[in-house]
Structure formats: structure tokens, C-alpha cells
């Protein structure tokens, strides 16, 4: 789950970190008032779960309250990578001397948190990593000891020469690690970490992702989810316990298991079709899940056909067949359904489907081929 900049900054401030001031505005009038309060100039930043906000015109400098209102009015409602901006963050303009990058994330290879810092901040760090990898300093954190103070100091010293700046940055790096671990994050990033002409170091941007598996035990963090900025299908899928990702095609897919679900999408493409979604109904055969899955898939007007690909291992095919029949009776489906069921209790499943006037095929290639033909 991604946090907005203002939410991440709030967690940073709770840890005592030096962060630039700022408040959220939902309309141009609020932006004007905030700009006035910050002395007549401000930066207006779109709050949206997407990178490249600046390039998309979602970050603007205002040199008067009127300009702040005008920028807010332009940015609010703007679409950035398909996401509509609902709020802007209004911050005073800082006197920036240098811009650095500080990030921490979970390193898959090392199986531990890893810090990445660079004196070349304020730009896309993936670009720095690709073009000038020596500019990035990496350090793995031993989970048995956490981030030790000399390590934080060492990271900070790779960013600044001035001892005063190094001390401030070391403190911020330690605080970032606390926020990262304390909120179950998978990534926390400050880009840029600035030093001002007056010799202060502070975070003026913030980005954080929370590990979805942590949310059950962190209600305060879970409450930060911005359901308004996500597709309603995503919200419904999450509530039903389904893994769902919307795509652009017209072949609806309902599969058990994530790997098989991806392979099914790939096979749709192989046969010349376009998948409408990724959907893993999981190992459970609960009919309610099947109903929820069908409701979500059919809410997409592009969907021309729905394919089921079920490999019954632990999942019993007869349970899934009952779920499909129940779903069809309960909600009514007006696009064709094509079904593949193989494995545990498949004969019984075929009987259940046949009674409801539905048929199933035995292989993945057959069902996908059928679905792609019907979608044309």
C-alpha cells in the first residue's frame, strides 16, 4: 500500500524528523490561505500515487496567494498516469543549497533492509543507478542489530563534508530507519533531502510503501489507505480477499493460484487476445468468492467473455463448479462463460455444470482458445 507524501511526512514528523512544513488543501481557496500563511509564496504539489508528478505538471511554484489558488485549481482534478488528483500539499518554498537522496527498502538478495544514499538527489534515482551507479552508496542493515549509529553517520558522511550537516543527516537517516521498521514499510524514501543556505538539513519530499501483509496488525497505518484514489473494483476485490489487477483487454480471467493466473493471461495474449484482468481466487472454493470475482469482472464494460481456469489440487473442482452455478443464478451473467476444470473431483464438477447448462473443457489451451475466439 502506497502512502501519499503528506501522510509519509506525518509519520516522519512523529519520529521527530526535520521535515519542511506543509498542509493539505482540497480546493483552491484553501491553497490561497495556506500560501498567505507561508508568507505569500508556496510550492503546490499533487498528492497522487504516481511518480513523475513534476514532469506531468503536478508540482508548481506560486509567488502570490492568487497564483497558488490558480495552480491548485489546475492541479486538482488533473490526471497523472491515469490517477485523478484529489488533494494538493502546500509547502513554503525552501532556500535549497544541495539536494541528496536517502532511501531504505527490503533487499531481496540480501534478505535484509538496505540503505541507498546519493549526493545526487532530486532526480529519478533509477536513472542515477543506471547512468552513474558509483554515485549511489549502498549499505545493508543486519536485522540482528538494526541500524547502528556509526553506520548512520557513515552514510551521512558520504553525502556531506560539513560536520554540522553530517550530524543532522545521520539523525534523519536513523529516524527514517525507525519509521521504516516501526510502520512495517517495504520502502521509505526522501528525495530530495536538502541542505539550506542557512545550514539546515531536512526532508522536503517523502515516499513510503507499506507491506500489505503488515496491515492486519497496524490499524492506524491501514486507515491511511486512500480508497477514493483507487478503482472501486480494487476496493471490492480486497474486501473479498481476492488478488485482482485491472488490465486493458476484454477477456475476463478467473484462476486459482497466482502463477497459473499469470500464465493464463500470457496464454490469452499468445492466442491473439488481450486479458481484461489478473484475478486469483486463491485456494478456497467458497462460492461467495466466486460470486465476488464474477461481479468484479462483469463490472468492466469492456469484458466480452469470462474464462475460468481451475487446476484442482487442494481446491476441489466440484466446490468451484457449485460457486460458478450459484454466481450465475444469483447475479446473472450476460457474457459467455468458458470453463476449464482439471484435477480433484473434476467428473463431479462436470455433472454439476451440466445440470446448469454449462460445459467445461480439460485443458488450458482449449479454454483460452475458445475465450479469445468469443471475444472477437
Amino acid at each position, binding site marked *: 500500500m502506497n502512502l501519499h507524501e503528506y501522510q509519509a511526512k506525518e509519520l516522519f514528523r512523529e519520529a521527530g524528523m526535520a521535515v519542511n512544513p506543509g498542509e493539505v488543501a482540497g480546493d483552491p481557496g484553501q491553497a490561497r490561505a495556506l500560501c498567505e500563511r507561508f508568507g505569500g509564496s508556496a510550492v503546490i504539489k499533487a498528492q497522487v500515487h504516481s511518480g513523475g508528478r513534476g514532469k506531468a505538471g503536478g508540482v508548481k511554484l506560486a509567488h502570490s496567494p492568487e497564483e497558488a489558488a490558480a495552480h491548485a485549481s489546475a492541479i486538482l482534478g488533473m490526471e497523472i498516469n491515469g490517477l485523478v488528483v484529489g488533494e494538493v500539499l502546500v509547502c513554503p518554498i525552501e532556500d535549497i543549497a544541495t539536494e541528496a537522496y536517502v532511501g531504505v527498502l527490503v533487499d531481496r538478495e540480501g534478505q535484509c533492509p538496505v540503505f541507498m544514499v546519493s549526493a545526487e538527489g532530486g532526480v529519478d534515482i533509477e536513472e542515477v543507478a543506471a547512468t552513474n551507479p558509483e554515485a549511489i552508496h549502498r549499505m545493508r542493515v543486519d536485522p540482528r542489530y538494526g541500524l547502528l549509529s556509526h553506520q548512520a553517520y557513515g552514510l551521512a558522511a558520504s553525502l556531506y563534508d560539513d560536520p554540522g550537516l553530517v550530524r543532522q543527516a545521520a539523525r534523519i537517516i536513523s529516524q527514517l530507519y525507525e519509521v521504516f521498521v516501526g510502520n512495517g514499510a517495504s520502502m521509505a524514501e526522501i528525495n530530495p533531502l536538502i541542505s539550506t543556505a542557512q545550514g539546515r538539513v531536512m526532508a522536503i519530499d517523502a515516499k513510503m510503501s507499506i*507491506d500489505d501483509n503488515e496491515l492486519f496488525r497496524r490499524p492506524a497505518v491501514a486507515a491511511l489507505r486512500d480508497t477514493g484514489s483507487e478503482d472501486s473494483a480494487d476496493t471490492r476485490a480486497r474486501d473479498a480477499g481476492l488478488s485482482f489487477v485491472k488490465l486493458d483487454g476484454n477477456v475476463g480471467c478467473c484462476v486459482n493460484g497466482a502463477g*497459473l493466473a499469470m500464465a493464463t493471461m500470457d496464454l490469452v495474449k499468445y492466442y491473439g487476445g488481450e486479458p481484461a484482468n489478473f484475478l486469483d481466487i486463491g485456494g478456497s472454493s467458497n462460492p461467495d468468492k466466486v460470486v465476488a470475482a464474477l461481479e468484479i469482472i462483469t463490472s468492466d464494460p469492456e469484458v466480452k467473455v469470462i474464462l475460468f481456469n481451475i487446476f484442482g489440487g487442494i481446491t476441489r473442482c466440484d466446490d468451484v463448479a457449485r460457486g460458478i452455478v450459484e454466481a450465475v443464478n444469483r447475479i446473472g451473467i450476460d457474457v459467455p462463460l468458458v470453463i476449464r476444470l482439471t484435477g480433484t473431483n473434476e467428473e463431479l464438477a462436470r455433472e454439476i455444470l451440466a445440470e446448469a447448462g454449462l460445459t467445461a473443457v480439460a485443458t488450458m489451451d482449449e479454454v483460452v482458445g475458445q475465450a479469445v475466439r468469443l471475444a472477437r
Partner: protein
Amino acid sequence: MSIFVDGTNRVVVQGITGRDGSFHTRQMMGYGTRVVAGVTPGKGGLDFEGPGGTAVPVFDTVAEAVAETGADASVVYVPPAFAASAIMEAADAGVGFIVCVTEGIPVLDMVRAHALARDRGSRVLGPNCPGIICPGKTTMGIIPGRMVTPGPVGLISRSGTLTYEAVYHLTRGGLGQTTCVGIGGDPLIGTSFVDCLAAFAEDPDTEAVVMIGEIGGTAEQEAAAWASANLDVPVVGFIAGRTAPPGKRMGHAGAIISGSAGTAAEKTRAFEENGIRVARRPVEIAGLVAESLR
């Protein structure tokens, strides 16, 4: 032969009295796995009823189970909130091979659990994995026994049902397996493709290996390079997620493309550059294996 387990293991089931734990314990015992103990805190002293009237003693802690029964391997069917702790308990009790089926464990919990297991010298398989099956000998986890048959193919996969799909075609094509290993769909897993390849390299009965990978991370690239340098038997690959968009988690917590290295195209390229033939469809896997064995 088989890798990691061989049918002589004495298995303790953590979470044996739960819904999944009890069901799969009976399945495993029915297949011939020697389940010698169960652990559920607070239920020590009970007997778990296995198939055919057999009884498995239940203990409060893994340490007790190990002391009383000599258990040397464990399967964890414990809910996500407590699963990392269960892995650490098993490692601390000296259990050398720990299979964790649980999906949804917080990643930072697994950072600690993997570190502790490494310190104790225990191998963790998973988490978020279907387990391991040595056809005709033993199974630990949830892979259905009737899908597999003994033979010369070693199989390694990040996915559960996609493993079944591949094994189904192998078995139907008359290609049995030495061992099928599900390494898990999480970003941090205890046993990698390379660990499995290294074990298969030592197994004289394994004449070909199937690697089923997916988007996210770079484990497939490392495995391909390792296989090319160290493995004498042919490898056939499959990568799921060619149509997955970047930045979206595709069900498995580890199946997310960040940057260019995690894409299916990049992994396929790494496979092919290292002499691994890549099936475009799951159904092609068995045919490629048959050709490579000729």
C-alpha cells in the same frame, strides 16, 4: 534419489490441530510421510488422529517434540501473524529442514526469521510455498500426491498451481520426477533456485531439470548463470507474467516488476542466453523435456 528429503525424515507438523494443518497432515501420512509429532501451543498432551487409527502426539513446543520424538524436519501451517515465530522456534530447536506453507507473513518478520535460521544452520523452504514432494517416497506441504510419479525430472517452481499444471503434463507424457520443489512466491524465501539446482546437480537420478519462474526479482537470472556454469543436465524453463504491467503485485508478494530486471522478457533472455530452452506455453514444457532427454 531425491533432494533435501528422502523419506527417512521424522516430521513435526506445526499447527497440526488447525483446519489446514490437520487436513494436510492426514494427506501427508497417507502418502507415507513419517509424521512423528505435532505442535500446537496449549494442546500439548493430546493425540492427533491420523489415517487408519494412527495417533500422533501433540506438544506445546517444538523443543519438546524434538526431545521426545527425534523430529528433524517440520512443516509450518501457522497463520501469518505467528508463522515467522514458528519458523524461528523450529530452527532454535535444531530442526534442520523447515517447510513453511503460510502465505501473507510480514516481510520484516521474515527478515528476522531467515537471519535466525541461517545462524542455526537450518534450511527454510518458503514461505508461501506448496512444499516438496519426492514421488513414491514422501511429501511435505500441500502438493497432491496423485499428480506425480517417480522418474528422471527435477522440478523447481515459484508457484503452486502452475507446478501442478507442469507436473500434470510431465506425468501424462511419461516423464516422472525425482523431486518437485515449490520454493515460494514471497520476495524473501529460504531456498533459492540456485540451492535447488545445486542439490539436483548432486543427484545422479535427475537427468533434466524444469525451472518455472515468474516476474519480480532476479533469482531466475542468477539461476540461469549458475546452471550454465555448473550443471551437466539439460534445463527447460518457463516464465509466467509476460503480460503483467510494471509496478503491480500479481498475487504473489514477490511477483512485482520494479525496474527492468524483473520482467519476463529479461528472465527469458537470461534463460536462453545460458542454453535453457524456454516453453512459451505450460503445455510445451513436457515436450521440451522429452526432446532434451533424447
